């Protein structure tokens, strides 16, 4: 880890790894978790299904936000790692399912855990090229890699099933029930979110913010910008893959669209709707997005028009996302700084 630590000679206080930075945050998180646990007792199966979707999409959006909110680069190809994860799990459990029609817990969990590893490997290759660029060039390069992977999956019939995707991905019996899979997702997503939180509050997480606010200054401090960005890209890819792993057995199928840029767009929406400056902003945004989708498509086929108007209004009138409505002081102990300091608008010297 010494590679990722701040250079010696700079006496930087290590941020406390406290999970409850303020009583307020603790209360909010406990309330949210409690509500999530209690949910299946109060609503019908349909909304439990929607909530499950929110959890998975939310984790995916949180992984995207490691690159966007914390590192300050926008990726349009992040769904590639989500899709690679989903396909990894699907391909591993496909064979035993085809033979017996059932899947054991051991191989199922192994398939879930293999997904982030494969996604991280793919992200390591893609990221190696992408972190050399910034801004719109970074965005287009990630988009290009994502679309390339999409077409590979789309065309490789013998291995991925091509545009048919892979169907019949049944989880173990206990998880076949909507509630069962929901609690399974809730546990895994909660653990993953906690790990993400730990990462963002580590010295590594603060290096990410330093690079976001002023890449050149970070480099002057002796931070190896590319190595840190690359490491973060790989980490973000791994969490996207983990979210993807949950997706296949949840929907019982995978399709190439999981890798497409529209899916990447959902992560961007979620982060911006909820608030990219907050750890749980993307999760909240995913909730709003998915809930709106489930709600609106019940009444009208003009879903794009609806979400378009919502996004338009949000960008114009609430640029920091929904969580920016909450006063800063609520999040922090007396006088302490906010958990995720907002990006500062410093003049960047021109070359």
């Amino acid at each position, binding site marked *: 880890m010494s590679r990722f630590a701040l250079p010696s000679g700079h006496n930087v206080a290590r941020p406390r790894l406290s999970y409850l930075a303020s009583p307020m945050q603790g209360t909010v998180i406990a309330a949210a978790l409690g509500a999530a646990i209690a949910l299946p007792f109060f609503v019908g199966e349909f909304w439990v299904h929607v909530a499950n979707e929110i959890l998975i999409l939310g984790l995916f959006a949180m992984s995207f936000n490691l690159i966007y909110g914390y590192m300050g680069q*926008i990726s349009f190809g992040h769904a590639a790692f989500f899709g690679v994860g989903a396909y990894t799990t699907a391909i591993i459990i496909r064979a035993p399912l085809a033979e017996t029609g059932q899947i054991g817990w051991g191989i199922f969990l192994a398939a879930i855990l293999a997904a982030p590893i494969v996604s991280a490997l793919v992200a390591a290759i893609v990221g190696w090229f992408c972190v050399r660029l910034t801004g719109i060039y970074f965005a287009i390069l990630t988009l290009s890699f994502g679309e390339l992977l999409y077409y590979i999956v789309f065309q490789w019939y013998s291995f991925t099933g091509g545009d048919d995707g892979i169907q019949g991905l049944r989880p173990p019996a206990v998880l076949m029930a909507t509630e069962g899979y929901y609690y399974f997702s809730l546990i895994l997503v909660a653990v993953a979110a906690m790990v993400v939180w730990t990462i963002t509050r580590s010295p590594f997480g603060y290096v990410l913010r330093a690079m976001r606010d002023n890449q050149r200054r970070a480099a002057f401090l002796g931070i190896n910008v590319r190595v840190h960005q690359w490491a973060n890209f790989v980490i973000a890819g791994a969490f996207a893959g983990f979210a993807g792993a949950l997706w296949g057995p949840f929907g019982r199928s995978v399709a190439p669209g999981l890798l497409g840029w529209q899916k990447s767009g959902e992560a961007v929406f979620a982060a911006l709707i909820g608030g990219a400056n907050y750890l749980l902003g993307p999760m909240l945004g995913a909730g709003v997005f998915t809930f709106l989708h489930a709600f609106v498509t019940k009444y009208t086929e003009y879903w794009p*028009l609806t979400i378009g108007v919502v996004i338009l209004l949000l960008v114009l009138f609430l640029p920091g996302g929904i969580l920016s409505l909450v006063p800063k002081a609520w999040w922090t102990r007396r006088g302490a700084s906010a958990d995720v300091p907002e990006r500062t608008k410093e003049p960047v010297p021109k070359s």
Partner: protein
Amino acid sequence: MEFGFDFVFPQLMAGISRGMLLFLVAAGLSLIFGVMNILNFAHATFWLLGGYIAYSAFTAFGPPSGANPLLVIPATAVAVAALMLLGFGLERVLIRRMYGREVPEQLLLTFALVLIIGDLIKLVWGVEDRSVFLGLPPAVIFGAFINIYYLVIIAVGLAVLAGLYWFLQRTRFGRIVRAAVHSREMVEALGIRIATIYMVVFGLGVGLAALAGGVVLPLTPLALGADIDLIVQCFAVVVVGGFGSVIGTFVAAILIGVTYSFAIFLWPDGALAIIFLFVIAVLVVRPWGLFGTELRT
């Protein structure tokens, strides 16, 4: 498959005309980004809307099939005029609020426009594909049969390239636009109303997209969602050429158009994948595109 001249030449012409279409749309995209630093995700949606308006104008003047081919000209003119007005209006009401915002927020706002305009097109024109048929005879050039309309599109593309070059290099307004690329503040300090410049540039860029929409109408049917395919390719063009460079955009558009037109024969479903491979190769070797410089990020 024979890779003789009879195959290569028509394919090359198809590729070049496709490149011209990409250029017409990407030029506006590049101009708007270069001058206003706004990344307009909705640019190809304006192209599609222009196409639908041109279709409605065309069918108002005559039948969709077998009408006088020259009707394309007034139909395109109507689309360009309508979209320029829309562009001016949108710049005044929406885009103006986005100056100085972060790139992702601009993308999000313009992507919202993609969703809204796309659905409005669906509301007005329905889900059926729309096309006009001119019934022009093919031209025989060097013994190969060429769709004569390719030549029209190539001529329009070259005319726009020349026109843009003349406008930016030789006119007073063009000089102001180029100055605004480098320093908005200085242009403002010299007493030039930058707000008007921005509005005109945005309207002009959108008008170029509408021009492409009208001109391409007799060649490819209009379909919902076609804008999404095109905008992704236009971003590829602009990035490969280098943002803000008209010549770069032109060269990249032709390169990508021709690559696509041959790739679609080698790998029909994966032609776009080859385009993305091309973009990756260029960006890895030349991070600012073929003709671009590290101006603003």
